[in-house]
């Protein structure tokens, strides 16, 4: 029973990672960049949700929607101002810029809201359903459900809408997509918007589980979700989903059965092992260089 409850908790945490990882993977797929600032967008999302609930007194759903709106806008803004001018620059320049944006967001948050940790209000009732001695908390259930819904909607969007197909075309071949009359810049903006909007969802789910809000809140989940995206094969949406869930489960099981202190090390060790066996991740595509 213990194992089962750990597994479910792992899936809950993994769902949060999966939603964040989607942001990384979609941006990587289309813009071929590692958006290091993604974790900090989560942090901003958490603050917006926090203030709209505790200061503005909004109920949960409008607070989440407000947070989504702010993050979406922020994501698009960051892309326009910082990344778009670097479309033809080296990958390293873009990476450093993303790091700069990450510093900027963290320090801005610290200036605006101080570095002290704020306690996120309990928005989701504690307790849960107990069945045969196995208790699953509401938070976990809601997190997993949100993740499944997000995943389904996203896959439907990518595969069955005109915009979704255009986004896929851009990630396959920008030149060809441009020739087909697709505006690559617009598609990249949309990708950033979706990724950052999802980050807001992730932030609320994250804070429902770990209810503390501070300016470096996004850093570690960011790195882990990024790892999850690589786990699954960066650029692949089902890969991010699978990678996120796996990572959450591994982390919780390692914490429960091996050592709390070493759980992070174990997560990263598993990542290395997976990459050694499958150098492009679980569902990543292998590209062969033409000689």
């Amino acid at each position, binding site marked *: 029973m213990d194992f089962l409850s750990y597994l479910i908790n792992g899936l809950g945490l993994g769902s949060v990672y999966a939603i964040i990882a989607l942001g990384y993977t979609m941006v*990587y797929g289309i813009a071929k960049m590692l958006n290091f600032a993604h974790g900090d967008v989560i942090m901003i999302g958490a603050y917006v949700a926090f203030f709209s609930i505790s200061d503005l007194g909004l109920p949960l759903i409008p607070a989440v929607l407000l947070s989504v709106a702010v993050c979406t806008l922020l994501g698009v803004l960051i892309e326009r101002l*910082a990344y778009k001018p670097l479309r033809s620059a080296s990958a390293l320049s873009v990476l450093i810029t993303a*790091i700069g944006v990450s510093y900027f967001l963290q320090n801005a948050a610290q200036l605006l809201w101080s570095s002290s940790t704020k306690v996120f209000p309990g928005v989701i009732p504690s307790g849960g359903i107990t069945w045969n001695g196995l208790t699953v908390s509401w938070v976990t259930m809601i997190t997993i459900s949100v993740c499944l819904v997000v995943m389904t909607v996203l896959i439907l969007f990518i595969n069955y809408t005109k915009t979704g197909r255009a986004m896929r075309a851009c990630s396959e071949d920008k030149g060809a997509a441009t020739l087909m009359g697709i505006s690559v810049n617009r598609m990249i903006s949309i990708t950033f918007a979706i990724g950052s909007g999802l980050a807001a969802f992730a932030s609320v789910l994250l804070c429902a589980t770990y209810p503390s809000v501070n300016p470096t809140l996004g850093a570690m989940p960011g790195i882990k979700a990024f790892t999850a995206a690589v786990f699954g094969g960066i650029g692949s949406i089902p890969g991010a989903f699978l990678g996120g869930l796996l990572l959450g489960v591994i982390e919780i099981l390692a914490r429960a059965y091996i050592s709390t202190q*070493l759980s*992070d090390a174990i997560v*990263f060790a598993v990542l*290395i092992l997976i*990459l050694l066996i499958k150098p*492009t991740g679980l569902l990543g595509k292998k590209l062969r260089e033409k000689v």
Partner: protein
Amino acid sequence: MKKKIGLPAFLTDRKYRSRTTSFAFVIFGWVILEIMMNTGSLSSLFTSLLVPVCCYIVAAIGLNLNVGISGELNLGQACFMSVGAFTAVCLSGSLAQTIPSPVIRLILSLFAGAFVAAVFGALIGIPVLKLEGDYLAIVTLAFGQIVKSLITNTFFGIDDAGFHFSFVENKVELMPGGKMLLNGPMGATGTERISNFTTGIILILISLLVVFHLIYSRSGRAIMAARDNRIAAESVGIGIFRTKMLSFVISSCLAGAAGALYGLNYSTLVPAKFDFNTSILLLVYVVLGGLGNMTGTIIATVVLVLLPELLRSMQDYRMLIYAIVLILIMLLTNNETVRTALQRIRRKVRGKTNG
């Protein structure tokens, strides 16, 4: 080819000029700073920054070999600094009675730190260098986290009965008079501060020498060939793995020496000091200084370490300004108009010196 008679090759040959510039720059800086220190015109804040700056420079030079010359994105350089630092601190601490001379202990600890970091580099390099591109980068990041996590969970002490070691849980019990060298998340405390600025400068000069000697040799050409075109490099008989491993190990070795110097400069040192952010900072120094450009790396490191201190008057806004400066530099250096303008200026300057 034009040849100026009378001037030695290191001044005329374009190849060696970058090396000469780097050395001249470091030695010039050293002289100036020594004069300032001796006349008392250097604030205590800046004096305290001298050794750390040297450490970051050495680690960044190593990283530049890895990222600029060898072309591999390494996001875990700080973990080799960490390995070097704690090796050196532990060695220096355990030799405190045996070898009273701090100079000899410092040299021994630096070598030990560099060596152990190089061994870590070789071990980590085996899986890392089998991968390519962003996957390689993420694995260096992962190893950085793992090494940090391992050091954070290591307890290591010495007393008259010898060494005591435990992992994850602190089970080290020392006899009276014993000394805890590495205390898990608390790191090292009570370290005797034996590093100094002169050692730092010497370490910079040695690392420049190592890197430049390597670059202008068979191995250096092989490293750059493997970076520029993997398949062509293999087809002229260059083993990619061995070549990349060489640069990775030397890079880790330099980071280890840098870490050793760093660790011996503070009486307390926590493992969390060498986290992902430190790796990223080193990468920022390298990219801003210019890939493969060692003098640039030195300048960028000095400026970026000092910038937050210079902005102290701005107080709370300094890190925000730091972030904005970082973004602006990247945007400007990649801007077409700015680029062409810079090239025009460079051509003009060159035209004047040649004519």
